[in-house]
């Protein structure tokens, strides 16, 4: 699955939401710069989710605008200047909301898929 968008429209809302959730989740372990966020998502999904820059940075702008993350310039371990994003308390709450929504969604999809496998049976 690749997350990319060309233009915001209704169809990609779900994906947007998911990307936002992934970014927030990544930032839960502490401030990171954009590149590291992308790499983290990629690594943790075992290279399945490759977030393109064209989705990642607009996503970060979106989150910053909503007040869920804040950005600050800082030094990397390699002593380079980079822009670090940090989760705000609002962002933490949002992450919790997104997680529960996501779980509901996964369960719902799971139920549908199971039902499709064994029509007429109930759990």
């Amino acid at each position, binding site marked *: 699955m690749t997350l990319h968008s060309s233009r*915001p429209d209704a169809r990609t809302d779900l994906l947007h939401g998911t990307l936002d959730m992934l970014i927030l989740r990544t930032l839960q372990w502490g401030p990171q710069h*954009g590149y590291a966020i992308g790499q983290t998502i990629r690594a943790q999904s075992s290279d399945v989710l490759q977030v393109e820059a*064209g989705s990642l*940075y607009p996503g970060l702008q979106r989150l910053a*605008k909503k007040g869920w993350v804040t950005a600050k310039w800082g030094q990397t371990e390699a002593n*380079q200047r980079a822009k670090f994003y940090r989760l705000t308390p609002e962002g933490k709450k949002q992450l919790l909301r997104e997680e529960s929504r996501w779980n509901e969604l996964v369960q719902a999809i799971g139920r549908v898929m199971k039902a499709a496998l064994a029509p007429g049976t109930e759990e």
Partner: protein
Amino acid sequence: MTWLRRLLRHAEMEDQLDRELRFHLERHTADLIARGVAPDDARRQARLELGGPEQVKEQCRDARGTRWVDDLRQDVRYVLRTLRRRPGFAAVALLTLALGSGATTVIFTVMHGVLFKPVPFADPATLVKVDEQTKGIVDYRWGDRWAFSYPNFLDCQRDVRSLDMAAFRYGGGTVSGSGDPEFVDALQVSANLMSVLGVAPIAGRSLLPEDDRPGAAPAAVISQALWQRRFGGAPSAVGATVTFESMPYTIVGVAPATFTIRGADILTPIAQNPRPFMRLRGAHPGISVWARLRPGATRAAAQAELDAVGRNLAAHYPESNANRGFIAEPLRPDVGGVRPTLWLLMGAVALVLLIACVNVASLLLARAVSQDREVALRVALGAGRGRLVRQHLTESAVLGISGGTLGVGLAAIGVQPFVLLWPGGLPGADRVQLDWSVLAFALGVSLACGFLFGLAPVLRAPSQRPDPALRAGGRSVTGSRQLHSVFIVAEIALAMVLLVSAGMLGRTLLRLSSVDPGVNLRNVLTSRMAVSPSILSDPGRVRAAWQTVIDRGHRVPGVRAIAMVDTVPMRAGNNQVGYWTAPPEPERMQKPLALANSVTPEYLDVMGIPLRRGRFFDDHDRLGSEPVVVIDEVMAQRVFAGQDPLGKRLWTDLAPEPLIVVGVVGHVRHWGLAADDRAQVRDQFYYPFAQVPDANVRRWSELMSIAVRTGVEPLSLVETLRHELRGPGGDQVLYATATLEQLANATLADQRFLVVLFGAFAALAMTLACIGIYGVQAYLTGQRVSEFGVRMALGATARDVVRLVLGESARMIAAGALLGACAAWAAERVLQRLVEGMIDTELSTFGAMVAILVLAALVASFVPARRASRVDAMTALRQE
């Protein structure tokens, strides 16, 4: 976050975004190298994965919601670049717009100052004007409104709680004493006039209620102008004495220069006027009443109170006040007849502005079409359609605002000369200035224009598909040709309205200038005159003083004849008198009216009025002899049609006994060269000043003028006459001096002014329309070079090509001319309503104007047509 801070932060954020993406790229590259990718490959791969940095930025801007700032900046930069690249286009477009919006702004500035601004007093919204109003009787001269009678004013002032009412009455007169005697405008005012209007004296005090009483010590407030003129602005003037109408008034204060009512230089207490009519409830001696609503009071409440007082007075004084009430209306500046003129001019400049817009629209469209390839390329490269539309609108907004700014500059230069050129002086000229409302108007107009002409290319934009335009190699013009034709048709039609209007106005002026005024305009000097105020109460001495004036006047070298007259032809002012030819006296409203002139025997010689029958007056017509009257041919025809009027009796409102008609003279265009034909009162009669009864001599004397026929240039005699006629006390003055020619010309001043301006606007409109047609045809033919090449390769001659192009122009021009002719015909109806003496639509003038415009338009399209015909077939085809 404010808009400005957002703009400032915007630059910083752009910078950060740039650095952030660069960092991303570096880290990615470094990671790839670390994984063993060759450095060059690593860099390329990193860049590939990032995608275009510009696209990423665009998406970030979208996400941030600040993209418009960026786009706007980019669009403006792009527009400025394209404009610089085509300086000719930019210059023509800007000049066109500057002229259009400049002219519009000038007229709006004047309208705003003269028509829309409130009276120049503090808190104008609470000021009202109060009139007497008659119910049931409507006089066709004044409608149902009347000036106040003084007793009615005093009752209203006392009983109406919600109004602070002030009265004033014109009372010009002679200031004498130290220095030359001069005639000044003056007002008799109630003591509270200045305080009601919120005007404080700049020296001394205002009039007090103690001054405003019969028998109080004469006190006066003088204007700042008079203070400077006669007292050099000395503080000691307050407390000094000014001799006005032979009466010494103590100056109690000086009114500021901003206080201008009828140009009055002296304010005297109205209650000190001892004349009997001031005590008569049935007399209406021209008293105006202005009032201020007291705090908390509304106009409706004031009106209710006025109604109650009116009913009360009608019950108590039925003879004078039956069916008479009072009406309060908002106080507005008195602007006389300039309103229709200003609206006409506004209409004319609006047409010019529209033509300018259409012109720029067609220029923009032509350019847009020639940019099709570029645009198509940009669409192919991913430019959003909305973005392209926005760019067009940005361009027209930039053009509109720049043109508007230039226009405001032109207006700032042009408005004062325009006001000064206004015939007879523009009322309220001092209120005319460029201010915020004018700037707001100019901005609004520029943006509206920008939107108007910006629409043209935008309308095309959605239909653009990149591939056909790219394939067409920039040659295709299909689709825009119709829009271009619409523009040309519109331009021709709009210009036609102005041109025909100007033509008809010109014809009107020509016709009016050649109209026989009924008098010989050459070498006649007229001047108002006041005899010594000290003798006014003695009729015998007044008569003698006037006789001396005539006698001394005769002795001045260069004077051929001299006469007294109370209403000079073609000058403002008239005396309408009811008459009847057989008893009993008709009802007041049923009486026909005539213009009455009280004159001395030489009047006919002075004016050159032809005697048709009988005789004019001589020195034997005096008090005690048979009262005589001479009527004009219009009245003779109307009243005594077919009969001999000589010896007939004529009753008038002037005297109880009938007058005997002794002569018939030619008709004089008293109302002016233009207006007389349509005037309601055209009958005229003359009666000898010598037969005016003693009781009226003073009043008549106050209105008197002298008229002199000269053998030399009339104005050269003014100083001699002024000196010769000063009288024994040196306090007899001439004022409002003018030659009859000047007066006659002044009656056509409005028409002349309109002709000049409409002429200028029409010329401008025609030039703009021709530029527009030239531009469109040059462009259209330029786009069809290869078509012409093919035609000529197939055997078409140069003449065929010219004919082809001209034929297309002619069709558009003809359509425009037809449409314009209809619109012009409608415009003529408007002009006829608003312009005095406007002639009926004249086919020859109409046709001539149409011909001029069509010819000019054809010439304008001939140049590109000829160029098209010179196309070399081989070169044209090789361009494929």
